[in-house]
């Protein structure tokens, strides 16, 4: 009497990106951009290690004397650490970005599915990667500028990253919405709100 082939529900899969030379180049550039901003952001935080040198009381970390290590390290060793930290940060942030991009893509894909617009994952990732490259480079440049203006850094550090995040999302919007019918613009902006809030919070 019953047919056992009735589908209960249908969940469309978010398309997967098939990498080509352009997407790979963009990913490399993005990783470089993250490293660039981390290197200069890290400069300020790396120098916080100096705290362990001015008072050895600060330097007991799990029973290990950072004071000793820092006091006796050669400049080359210190520079190696200074480069290693941003590399580790870059790897972590890049992985977080991949998760973020997938989440964002699924949001856009599902909404586009509802309104019946073709979703091109390659186009999406190219636009998002490019806007993030701009963001990371601007954040790095901001760090360099504020290193010259330490007094302005307090507030520069507060205002610049969220503004740069908004700017990069605007770049994404203008790039990704090209070719999209204007009547769908509000919907695209609406989809972008949650990812934008995430960026503003963590930028």
């Amino acid at each position, binding site marked *: 009497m019953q047919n056992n*082939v*009735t*589908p*209960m529900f*249908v*969940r*469309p*899969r978010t398309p997967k990106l098939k990498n080509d030379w352009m997407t790979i180049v963009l990913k490399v550039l993005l990783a470089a951009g993250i490293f660039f901003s981390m290197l200069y952001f890290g*400069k*300020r*935080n*790396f*120098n*916080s*290690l*100096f705290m362990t*040198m001015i*008072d*050895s*009381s600060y*330097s*007991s970390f799990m*029973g290990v*004397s950072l*004071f*000793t290590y*820092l*006091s*006796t390290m050669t*400049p080359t060793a*210190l520079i190696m650490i*200074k480069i290693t930290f941003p590399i580790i940060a870059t790897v972590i942030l890049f992985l977080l970005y991949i998760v973020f991009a997938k989440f964002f893509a699924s949001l856009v894909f599902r909404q586009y*599915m509802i*309104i*019946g617009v*073709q*979703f091109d994952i390659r186009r999406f990732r190219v636009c998002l990667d490019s806007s993030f490259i701009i963001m990371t480079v601007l954040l790095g440049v901001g760090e360099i500028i504020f*290193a*010259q*203006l*330490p*007094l*302005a*850094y*307090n*507030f520069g*550090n*507060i205002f610049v990253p*969220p503004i740069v995040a*908004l700017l990069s999302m605007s770049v994404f919007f203008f790039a990704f919405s090209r070719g999209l019918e204007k*009547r769908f613009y*509000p*919907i695209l*902006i*609406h989809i972008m*709100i949650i990812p*934008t*809030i995430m960026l*503003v*919070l963590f930028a």
Partner: protein
Amino acid sequence: MRNKTFGKRRIFTALSIMTLLVLILTAFVGCSAKNVDVKKVDGIDAALGDKAFGYMQTLLTQYADRTLGGGNDFEFAKYLSKTMSDWGYTSEFSHGDILGLQGFKTTFSRYVNYANEELSDVWAYNVIFTKHTSQQSKGEIMLTCQYDNLYQEQADMSGKPWGADGSYESGGALAVMLTLAEQLKDVDLGYDVTFAFFTGGSYCWRGALQYASQLDREKLDSIAIVLNYSMLCGDNLYIYEGETKTTYGSFLNACADGATTKVPNDRNIGQFILEQDSVYNYVNIGMLSNQHYFMNRYVPTANFLSLNWESNANPLFTEMSGKPNVYHTPDDTFENMLARKGEEGIKAQLFDVIKTSLTALSSENIDSFASALEKAESEFPNATAQNAKSASLVNVVFKAVLIALLIGVSYLIKSYVFKNSDKIMPQKQEQSENIEEPFGDNLYDTEVFGENDGDNEDKEKENTPFNDPFE
């Protein structure tokens, strides 16, 4: 024609934005040059460099161990007390029968046999002496330095005491202070001149913190300036007056007559603070000395220090180009200093510091210095807008406002889309008639769940409003 006007408008807008940015940035930095008038002072002899060098040798031979809580720091404090008393300085402080000692108990950690050992309630001694003016006092000029070192530190794999006499950190500054005290013992500048030899400089300048934190506002306001001498005999000599340019800073640099190097803009800062309610929420190498705690209490300060601030060879800071740092290492010894800087180089830099100080504190220039100091209060950075607390508050408020705005925009768009759904999705009605194929044009890959799935069949049965017991 229209395009031309549009182009002009764009240029005008771009220029306006750039001008605004420049105005905002210069308002933050406030780096205008200050005009100062400094008269040449005769009689400041280069032999004073030799004298200071002699003091360094005395320190090495008689008081190499000045470690806080190590025992010999007390002996050295007594030496300072006797020396200053002999030169006619007086003090409101005493510890036991020893004049000039501000004794206090402190707790800190030191590495002993590669283990962090806490030293509790250790007696520490600041040595404070003043020469009061015979005239109506215009205020107090403080000359400060640390006198302790890390001679007994054992943060080393060998577990042996370092034996570092601390010539770079504290030795040179001590020698300068003693020379200045000797030179100024008979000079009446119209100011009370205080010499403060602080202890605990190797442990976050505990002595200076102890001294500054016991001063009330009235006493702090009476301090015209704190001239601090910290690490000396590096590559270049700097006078760090704070994060903003000040008239008194320009005056002191003019007194140096070319011996000092301009503090670079990129100051390689570290994101930490030494005490709550710090003026800045970061530090740089210029801030890190005794005067820091006075600066945090809005007292004008100037720190004489010597390093190579322009070099990035060492990511933390570089004392001398091409040479390893000795700060807080077993290598901070007089022997190493001689090898790095040479006797003549040491004497020359010590003399530059002494000459600069004596020129500023001479009868010829004291009035100019006083008028420069009068402007110090107005030149202090807007602390409420710069400090760590207000920055954190603004950070939270700014992000909260931005997120609230984004959520607001989200709701506005939502209501707009609902109101204008006919315009946005005119085919909606048609689609609803064909509800079985919402994505009939097959735009997407789909993942189908439930096909040939016995479990789902069971669930379907459970969810059926009427269970047929006969089926």
